């Protein structure tokens, strides 16, 4: 009985895993098919032989390595800034008491609720006034201390930062700054990992603002490069899927490498006081 139950449980988990993986598998498969094979019935479910032709077409249409480097630059600098600013912000909201804290925090939460599209024109006007059209600064700077990140880090700090540890460090004569870097930051590693992955993915996929700001092909990030492959005149879906695979694969590899650490961190249990 117990074994039967376990089998059912495994079966359910495996079915869900299959559903989660299927679109990825299809993407890899499609990157080796011609557009005609992608749209055929019954659907082709196994790798085909059109990879090199797709590669040839892709290389002709876009400069993938360039787009890749652009995306990497924007995303890494953005993620780094987010992690830094949001962790100190969330930490401050979590452990310090100061006048106006509640109101400031309520304001922060409120800003999360306004759809970004509401102010897209004024936002663009600002960016042009700053001279940031065709500049990555427009993508990186405005959102690098964002409400979600601060909220996320505060939540984590509340659960995991032992006040006793801070007190001990203070008694040892550490400055507040040092306490954060020496004592607190290491505790926040799992939160850094989760927030980092989320922000990394968001920026890696950012399209709308990038489309308004980055007009020159040499500045294109990956989503813009992928978008440039889609045309009313007919899209080479095989090549597009290959480019998508190239865009997603590094992300997946980074995630898979970091995931053990990331998942471990989440399930290691709270820091016991």
């Amino acid at each position, binding site marked *: 009985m117990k074994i039967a139950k376990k089998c059912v449980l495994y079966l359910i988990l495996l079915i869900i895993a299959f559903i989660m993986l299927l679109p990825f598998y299809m993407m890899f498969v499609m990157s080796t098919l011609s*557009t*005609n094979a*992608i749209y055929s019935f019954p659907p082709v479910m196994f790798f085909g032989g059109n990879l090199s032709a797709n590669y040839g077409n892709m290389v002709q249409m876009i400069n993938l390595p360039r787009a890749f480097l652009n995306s990497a630059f924007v995303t890494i600098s953005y993620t780094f800034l987010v992690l830094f600013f949001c962790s100190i912000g969330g930490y401050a909201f979590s452990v310090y008491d100061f006048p106006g804290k509640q109101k400031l925090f309520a304001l922060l939460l409120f800003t999360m609720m306004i759809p970004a599209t509401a102010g897209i024109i004024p936002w*663009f*006007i600002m960016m*042009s006034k700053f001279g940031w059209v065709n500049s990555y600064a427009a993508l990186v700077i405005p959102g690098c201390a964002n409400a979600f990140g601060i909220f996320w880090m505060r939540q984590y700090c509340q659960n995991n930062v032992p006040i006793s540890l801070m007190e001990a460090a203070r008694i040892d004569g550490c400055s507040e700054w040092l306490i954060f870097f020496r004592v607190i930051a290491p505790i926040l590693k799992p939160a850094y990992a989760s927030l980092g992955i989320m922000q990394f993915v968001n920026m890696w996929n950012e399209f709308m603002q990038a489309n308004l700001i980055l*007009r020159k092909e040499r500045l294109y990030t990956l989503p813009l490069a992928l978008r*440039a492959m889609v045309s*009313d*005149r007919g899209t080479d879906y095989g090549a597009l899927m290959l480019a998508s695979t190239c865009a997603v694969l590094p992300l997946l590899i980074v995630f898979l490498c970091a995931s053990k650490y990331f998942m471990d961190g989440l399930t290691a249990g709270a820091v016991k006081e």
Partner: protein
Amino acid sequence: MKKKLQKIVSVLLITGMCASMVTGCGSKAAQATTEEAGKEIAAAVDADPASIKAHIEVGGWPSGDDGFKAAMEGFNAIYPNIEVELVFTDTTSHHQALQTALAAGEGAPDVAMVEGAYIAQYRNSTALTDLNLLGAQDLKNDFGAFKWEQAVSDDGTRLVAIPWDLGPTLYYYRTDVFEEVGLPTDPEEVAELMKTWDGVLEVAEKVSIPGQRWFLPSAAYPYQWMFINRDYYDEKLNLVLEREGDLECIDACLKIRENGWDMDIDMWSGEAYAAYAAGTCVSVAAGSWFSGFLKTDIDPDGAGHWGATVLPGGMPATNWGGSFLVIPEQSENKEAAWAFVKYMLATAEGQNAMFKAVDYFPAYEPAWTAAPELYTDPDPYFGGQSPNAIAAKIAAEVPTVYNTIMDTTAEGYIYSSFNAGAEAGETPEQIRERLGSDIEAACAELKQQQIQTLKDAGVWQE
């Protein structure tokens, strides 16, 4: 004390922001081209081409860039010191970026493509240079009237764009399949056979194999062809959907749907494109620019198995899209921009070089006579037929119509309203009624905006 300071600082900051917005919006007007400046630009472009030194950005969507590249050598032979940078993306993204940059007053390219469906939005815009000031009115007679009028402001004084190409609507069909099922393949014979809806249904039945091969991507399209001039509204902004023979048309569409002779998908979807190439979707109609789509992208290996003729069902001559070029007022290189627009669109040399490369049928009529062979010679891709000759004939018959900013939204509803009506088992009258109410609902706010624009132009009468 400290708190007060904070308050003052934040108030100052916010006022600063709002002030910057006001100047942001105000600066647009300050740049408007004056009559004298216009004359100077026009003179410089005509008199001393080599003296214009500039780097200009030209924005658009593929394959306009291939067209420009094909004509660039000729352009630079006359204007050696103008450097052109092409900034191209997909159609939607391009228009969104252009729109945003014009609204913001900054960041637009020096020359931008605008698709025919969008031109009504820009027609009255003061964010675009009045090309009449640059001497464009002298070119008027060289262009088809129905296309030129689309770019003229409602008060009739300004011209914001020069037409690039026309899209005489052609009906494209797979000659190999027609032959296989014993139908004629010659354009005139096909046109004759399909002149009536009965003829259309006969063809549909013969070419279709349910579940494997289909007559059209969607049965909704013949109904959409009736409106492809985008003349949904009259000048009083009343929605006018009645057309001669429209109910017979919808009736035929419903029959196509009932019998499973259409794929029931969007004609621009990847699925449909694959079916055109594979010969599983046997026909489709579009502007003559679609010839270029077929040749270079959709079915590059398809030479010899496509044909093209006039629209079936006895429909009148229509025009489907075709683009324009505009020069934003914010451009600081108007001389070079105008030189570019004039060479590319208003010389036979420029237009024909682009026509050869990307099949954009020139709106500039002198181009047709300058190289008649381009328009009459048999096209090997179309098995020796000459779709361009048919397109030229259609172009001559297209009437001038009234376009509004609601047109693109209205057009989107034909497909979905027809599908909804067909699904609900409605009669042709009911489907037409449904389309009317769907469009009215979706266009309510746009109509208010259109009225406001017309009021601003001083031509709206309550």
